[in-house]
Every structure is written in C-alpha cells, then in structure tokens.
C-alpha cells in the first residue's frame, strides 16, 4: 500500500488552542521556500528545512522540529508551531482520523502521513509528530525513538 500524505490547505492552517496551547519558534529563518503546514526541522545550518525520511523526529538532527504556521521564502523568518493543536485543512474535511498517530511522510519532503494502513519503508524513521484530535486537526505530541525501521 502506498504512503499517503495528509492534504494540507495552506490558507486554512491555523492554531487551535482548544486542542492544546500552540507554542511557536520564531527565531530562525527558512532555508528554502516553505509553506504553511509543512513539517520542518532545524538543520545543521540552523535554518528550517522540510523533513525527509532521513529525519529522525525528536532525536539527532531532527531534535528541533515543528509544523510551519505561515510561509516564508529562503532567508525570511518562518514561524513554526512546536506543540499544541493545529488545523491543517478546512473544517470537517474528514482527512484526519481521530485518535490515529501521524508521522513524517515517506512520500515527499515535509509531508505528514498516518502511522498505520501501509508498510513503513525499511530505513525510514517512525517518530510520531502527533495524533488526530478532530477530522481536520492534529494535536502535536512527539514520540521519538530514533530507530530506523528494519
């Protein structure tokens, strides 16, 4: 079964305090053009970059991560939500399974995908970025192990 990214609607990415108080990191710049809703990590050059399957959420180079709360071009400051509730699409879009865990996508950089329903690629990291709180909202909650899937 193929990996499937959550569909993100850039203009509808919004903080959702009723599902956990949003906390932001606004001290670093974008390393490339990044849009709201992209899963990012602070790379070795201390700029925000889209995650890849080589990004181990919560450990090593992926220790500082979050979801872009707005958009920025390379060199511009990017506001990144690091905890709390975040809406990723239009209300009631039914794209998120409530109670399901979500992680960095194996399909494309910066994508978010569900933990179950497909086989995890060998060598991919499986750190959890959050769980479905509503059909359009994820509550960010890191579960990191730093272990690549065998």
């Amino acid at each position, binding site marked *: 079964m193929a990996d499937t990214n959550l569909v993100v609607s*850039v*203009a*509808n*990415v*919004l*903080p959702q305090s009723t599902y956990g108080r949003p906390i*932001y990191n*606004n001290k670093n710049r974008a390393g490339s*053009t990044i*849009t*709201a809703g992209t899963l990012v990590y602070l790379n070795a050059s201390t700029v925000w970059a889209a995650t890849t399957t080589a990004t181990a959420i919560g450990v090593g180079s992926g220790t500082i991560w979050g979801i872009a*709360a*707005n*958009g*920025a*071009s*390379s*060199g*511009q*400051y*990017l*506001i990144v939500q690091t905890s709390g509730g975040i809406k990723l699409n239009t209300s009631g879009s039914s794209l998120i399974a409530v109670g399901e865990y979500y992680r960095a996508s194996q399909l494309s950089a910066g994508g978010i995908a569900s933990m179950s329903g497909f086989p995890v690629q060998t060598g991919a990291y499986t750190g959890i970025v959050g769980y479905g709180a509503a059909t359009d909202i994820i509550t960010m909650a890191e579960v990191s192990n730093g272990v690549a899937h065998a």
Partner: protein
Amino acid sequence: MADISIIQANVVDDGATYPNYPVSITSSKLAGVALVPGDLVYGDTASLWQKLQCASSGGTATLSGYGANGIGVVLNTSAAGQPVSVQTSGAIDIGGNPAPAAGTVLYGSVNAGKIATSVTTGQYVTIIGQTVDSSDFVISPNATNVVHG
C-alpha cells in the same frame, strides 16, 4: 504619487547591513487578513495585523487611536488567523528593486498595505521611514493623525 515596488520573496530584515538601525520584530499577533512580505500593517484593537490604508475616507486610519497598537512591515506570508512576523523598527531590505533616492521619506499609501513616496491633499499623514540605499529603508513609524492640507 507612486507606491514603492517590492519583491516579496526578497524582503528581509537588514540589521546586518545597518547595525546602527536596530531591528525589532514581533510575532505575537495573528494576521487579520491575508498578508505577504512587504505589506504595511497596523495592529487593530483586536490584536490583529491589518493592512494600513491612509486614505481620508474609506481607509483604515482614523483620527482616534490609530497607530497605538503598532505599525510595521510584514516579513513573511500568512493567511488570516495565522501568526505573522512584523518588523516595527530598523533597517529592512525590500527586495533589491531600485528604491527612491537615499534620504527619501516614505509614507503610508492611500492604497491598503502599500508604501508611498509622497502624500496627497486630504490624506492622513503617516511617516513610515526613510530610504538609506537603493534597496533598504529604515522603519521609524510616526502616525501624525493629521490630514494633509
């Protein structure tokens, strides 16, 4: 009166080039409308950033309280309700477009979110800052609450 030209993708704070003009950036408020880098904004009474429009009528500027919650220039891209970074003082690079000659005073425009090089009769006068080279200006807002005679 012409609004100055801005290249959104290249808008960035520029305290590195002009350390004598310290940069202040705030990210504590959300966007009230869709905003892009280079937009001129003010903080409204609901603590949202809105596009500043210094028209004599139909604009967002009024004679009471205008500018009290901050004026600045947007540094990144945000939809309504998303957090946004706004530079409220110091040097800013607006993208490498040929700007007015160094020393030119800049004003809030009659066009929402825009910056102009002059004011016209009947327009609220809000000074935004002054250019320092062909690409940079220094943000130093001053809402006079005066209508140009």
